[in-house]
């Protein structure tokens, strides 16, 4: 075998290796997060933090529906956020999916998979959920709206670069979440769905 052939062979191998690495990165970005039952959602969240370049621990705000009310309540968590913005969106959504520690209703059903996150340059984040979100949220304007605004407000409050949130189901634009609340629009965070911080004696 000539030297030229050897160099060519090495070059091809390097290209192959590079493409495998690139494909792996791509797959990590695009593939569905493997299915995990409710109790393991937290483990999954921790793993995602460990697997990424760590930063400083921060306090983040999550929003959950108040049982029986048409409102969201803020809950705080300390989380070490990763640096890449799409991963950060995913990480915060996982924290929301993990559920309330103060007896609030779930915002995102625990079995829901986050299929993909895409940040558009105009400040709109596209979050693609699997169909579990549609199936597991109880159909009704109250529960659907609270699920949407829990997601939208949580992302916008913690990631200032996000102006609007667009929710997709199975990669597609849906008419509604589960028959009632509009999903054909990009949502702007709406603080009017959040309970005032001071307890209101009327409520």
């Amino acid at each position, binding site marked *: 075998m000539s030297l030229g052939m050897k160099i060519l062979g090495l070059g091809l191998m390097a290209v192959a290796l590079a493409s495998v690495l690139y494909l792996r990165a791509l797959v990590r970005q695009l593939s569905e997060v493997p299915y995990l039952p409710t109790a393991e959602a937290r483990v999954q969240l921790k793993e995602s933090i460990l697997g990424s370049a760590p930063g400083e621990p921060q306090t983040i705000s999550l929003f959950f529906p108040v*049982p*029986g009310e048409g409102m969201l309540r803020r809950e705080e968590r300390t989380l070490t956020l990763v640096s890449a913005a799409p991963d950060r969106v995913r990480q915060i959504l996982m924290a929301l999916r993990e559920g309330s520690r103060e007896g609030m209703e779930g915002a995102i059903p625990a079995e829901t998979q986050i299929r993909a996150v895409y940040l558009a340059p105009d400040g709109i984040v596209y979050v693609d959920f699997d169909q579990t979100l549609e199936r597991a949220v109880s159909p*009704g304007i109250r*529960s659907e709206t609270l699920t949407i605004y829990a997601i939208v407000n949580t992302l916008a409050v913690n990631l200032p670069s996000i102006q*609007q949130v667009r929710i997709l189901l199975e990669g597609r634009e849906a008419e509604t979440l589960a028959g009632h609340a*509009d999903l054909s629009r990009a*949502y702007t965070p709406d603080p009017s769905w959040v309970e005032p911080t001071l307890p209101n004696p009327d409520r």
Partner: protein
Amino acid sequence: MPSLTKRASILPLALGLGWAVVWATLLGPSRALGAENFIFYFPSRHEALPLRQIDQSGYLPLEKTLRLFGRPVNKRERQGRVSWRFNRRQLEVRAGQKRVRVGRKRVDLPFPVRHLDGEWWVPISFLTEVLGEIIPDAMEYHAGTRRIFIGEVEPNSFELRFDSLPGGARLTLQFLQQTSISAAEEEGNWILYLGGHPLQPPQPRFEFSNPIIKSLAFDDQDGRPKLILTPGPDQMTLRPLLAEGGMVLILDVARSDPARTAEGRTPRAPESIAPAPAASGGPVVGADSLPAVVLDPGHGGIDSGARGQNGLSEKDWTWRFTYQVRLALIATGKFRVVMTRNGDQLRSLDQRAITANTNRGAVFVSFHLGHTGAGQRTVAPYIYQPPFGTTTARSAGALSFVPWEEVQNSHLPESLRLAQYLRDELAAIEDIAIREPVSAPVRLLRSVDSPAAFIEVGDLSSLEDSGDLEDPEFILQLAQAVVRAIERFSY
């Protein structure tokens, strides 16, 4: 018959401007001497054969009739009798005789077979008494009519109501099945074509002793089912309105502008049969000036909506409840009520908005039942929350087009007033928690071109457990509260 006719004319007078409901007179099938047809409705086709009136019965040409159902073979004709092999049976008839031979059986017809002008004629009852024995399909024939339905044909029908209105009259036809209609004007009559689907009218002709409407007749002699509306002698205007998704046809007839009477006696052709009544032109007649209320029972068909643990589905409850609201609204006599679906029917959110928008000026209320997590009786009224940054003001220019997604925006102040009235009236019900009206991204309301509110009753689980959802008193209380709110809003 004369006494019924009298009732029809006296009652509306006695009740003055009231809602006199009069059932039209029943007349026998017409005995016209001219050429008539008999219509055979098969599942995917219909055929017409000439019908001959001989003595007391209608007669059909035998060989042509057999050919509609199969292939008669081995015809043998000799001295006053004819026979065929038909569907593996031997069929023989004799001129002037009622007796017919079918294989080894003998069947007696009520009238004798005739042999006229080289053709064999059998009375209509031959179809059910003899042919029914030979062919496997079921037949539906009503004595005295000139049509028969064969096999899996379910004919449409209707109920008719006559209302006398100031300066006019209204016919309301409630159909059994959805109907599509197109209208035409011919020789001083209005012709309403009822689509291609077969129809069995409750009677062939309704006569009215009324100066506005003379008669309403059904005719399908050319195989096209149609109604023929004959107005009184004055110049009249017809405003047809197909409502409730094609289940109800309202025919308003009124005297045209008196100045125009001189032009002649031809009625003006109907402007359109589209679900939307003409916005202007022609006098507004009676109940059409009543405000329309469009009621939307949430979900339907394969879309069950929310489900309870004991098998209750949202779509069934919203249908039952909305129907109660409908009855209570009609009982006030102040509203025209339109439903967005007929029974357990799947309709898209946009189709519901279209129903609302074809009844312009309507109040729109959608009813749902949900898991509100409240653990008690709750009612929450909602109005539409447009996407952030969309304009809510409609520009003043009459010709400005409003995007379909933004139709509700300009109605939001009125929608809020409607939702507040609903909240106030529902709050009066005992043991009920009521929320203040909230703006939410209710997709359904997005394109509704009228004041619109959305009601979510809950909590499904606890109401199902307590039996409240089946409690007629609770349902009535809810329905009456809704009606009071709509009355307050509209008057």
